């Protein structure tokens, strides 16, 4: 009896409460809504109401799951195409953020320690302005006679972009894959820099000295020591950019064009144009699953990195 009481007491102890609270939060605000969305995705619409999944009629318990939405997603090429497009643009954005963010984070972590808080502040400064405003500003910068557009056209960079297939014609920069990826890279860059900086700043610099002592040039030491040791930071930053980019709606809406249909837009259309909530929910469920897989890999790496640090 006493043992049972002790058990109960330990369950409500501070430690379990602290650990339990975030789980409760996720349960209530993530898992529960997700179950609802999933339920909608397999429900039949009856004018404006969903049919019950489980019905008891004449003593027969019936469970009806409408899977046609999922079948439709696999059959209609539009969905596959937009999923792939979303993955493609998210991947391109992630790579660009990494290419720009890594050197930035690296030199920030190696800058004078008195300078670092300022640099960190500058990275976070854009968050002070509305995200919508900042994205909208690119519309002005990239459309005809915009500063950035003029610069790109005068320097001939638009020719390169055209050759790379990122814009449909030289001089046309707005509403193209180029403007979309540019906008997403611009918006998500801080999310790449911050975890990378955190990782690189705590690296043991004597390891680089040890590498130099053993005959490695600065370049070799960077690729053999710094990069492998910052793997956790690279993964964290990439996930923070990649995952929200897949479902991004606002930036493709403002900066993208007919070429750059992404899954967020498809979902919007299903919800608000077609009013087909079950279909929209199915698209959402598939998207969440697409994100959960990389997250699981990420978690696995995190656990391994923890193991190394022990």
């Amino acid at each position, binding site marked *: 009896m006493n043992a049972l009481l002790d058990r109960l007491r330990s369950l409500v102890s501070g430690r379990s409460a602290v650990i339990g609270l975030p789980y409760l939060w996720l349960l209530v605000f993530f898992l529960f809504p997700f179950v609802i969305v999933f339920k909608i995705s397999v429900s039949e619409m009856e004018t404006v109401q969903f049919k019950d999944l489980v019905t008891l009629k004449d003593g027969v318990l019936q469970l009806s799951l409408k899977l046609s939405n999922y079948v439709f997603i696999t059959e209609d090429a539009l969905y596959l195409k937009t999923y792939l497009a979303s993955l493609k643009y998210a991947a391109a954005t992630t790579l660009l953020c990494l290419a720009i963010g890594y050197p930035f984070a690296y030199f920030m972590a190696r800058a004078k320690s008195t300078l670092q808080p300022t640099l960190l502040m500058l990275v976070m400064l854009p968050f002070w302005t509305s995200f919508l405003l900042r994205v909208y500003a690119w519309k002005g910068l990239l459309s005809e006679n915009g500063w950035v557009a003029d610069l790109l056209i005068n320097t001939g960079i638009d020719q390169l972009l055209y050759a790379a297939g990122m814009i449909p014609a030289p001089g046309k920069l707005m509403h193209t894959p180029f403007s979309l990826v540019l906008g997403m890279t611009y918006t998500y860059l801080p999310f790449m820099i911050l975890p990378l900086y955190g990782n690189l700043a705590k690296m043991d610099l004597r390891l680089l000295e040890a590498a130099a002592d*053993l*005959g490695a040039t600065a370049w070799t030491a960077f690729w053999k020591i710094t990069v492998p040791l910052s793997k956790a930071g690279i993964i964290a930053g990439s996930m923070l950019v990649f995952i929200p980019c897949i479902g991004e709606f606002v930036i493709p809406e403002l900066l993208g064009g007919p070429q750059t249909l992404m899954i967020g837009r498809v979902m919007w259309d299903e919800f608000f144009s077609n009013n087909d909530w079950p279909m929209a929910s199915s698209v959402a469920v598939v998207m969440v699953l697409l994100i959960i897989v990389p997250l699981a890999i990420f978690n696995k790496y995190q656990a391994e990195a923890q193991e190394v*640090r022990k």
Partner: protein
Amino acid sequence: MNPSSAGNEQRASGDAAFLRIEHLTKDFDGYKAVNDVSLDIAKGEIFALLGSSGCGKSTLLRMLAGFETPSSGRIVLAGQDLASLPPFQRPMNMMFQSYALFPHLTVWDNIAFGLRRDGLPKAQVADRVEAMLKLVQLGKFAKRKPHQLSGGQQQRVALARSLAKQPQLLLLDEPLGALDKKLREETQIELVNIIEQVGVTCVMVTHDQEEAMTMASRIAIMSEGRFLQVGAPSEIYETPATRFVADFIGNVNLMDGKVDDDQPDHVIIGCADCRHYVGHGITGNEGMGVTVALRPEKIHLSRKAPDDEFNSARGTIKELSYFGSFTVYHVELASGARLKVSLANVQRHRDDQFTWGDTVWAHWSRSAHVVLTS
């Protein structure tokens, strides 16, 4: 006169030094971490730089490795001036303090790291790594990551990694600093054996005098960027050149006095509590103020007054510290000065054990002292 430079001139005229450090200075914004230091080290020597933290010993070692650029002076290794060589081209390897093993690489890859940078063929790298693993007896642990090893094993990986490239000079930065006392004592001997087996010349930095004494063939005592004394461990212990060195190395009783009688074969020095008869001549003159240094283990205790009118003092035991193999007695003399006396505990039980409050005579031989004039 700076004893290190005296040693240098002597050595330089004889055999050619393997590693020669000439008037090396490192200036950090006006603070001279290393101040005009010169040193010759012979091939095969294990040389220790000993000093408390901030004395410049690590800066000196880092200049050898190439991580710091000297403000002035030269470093010559086997006839080659190292000034123009970046760290990754220097024919020397360093074992870092707390090892700096690469955490993401296995023991095998850690040791192979330097060999691969030289572009050696795979088979040769493997042979060399296996040989190193055998040397430090870690063959079984080749596939482990550093964090899966104990402190002592990590230390041996670090040693293997720094020896893998067969460096001309091995630099050790506090090689045993991260180990606990018991393991340190065992490792000291093992480390020396391995270094001697390989035959590499070695410069080590340490703040642990025991480590320096047991491992090194010669020691340089450093303070404020300068060498205070360079010599073999016994030389430094038994004939310290200055008050600082005498006090820094081991325990010592320092008594100030002045020369009463100066003869070619002996001197008599008067101190507050006793008169010293020193059985050798000194460079000085009568009336000169000197310090007499007396090691605690060179003093004996007795209950009766000794026959000799010199070299003895009466006092009371105020404190004693038992260390197992020996006991240190603090004897308070008439002037209030305290004399540390260490006696070996040869017998398990003694009937007339000295204890607190005992009045005793401390006495010492005519060759026990070191007279310090500076």
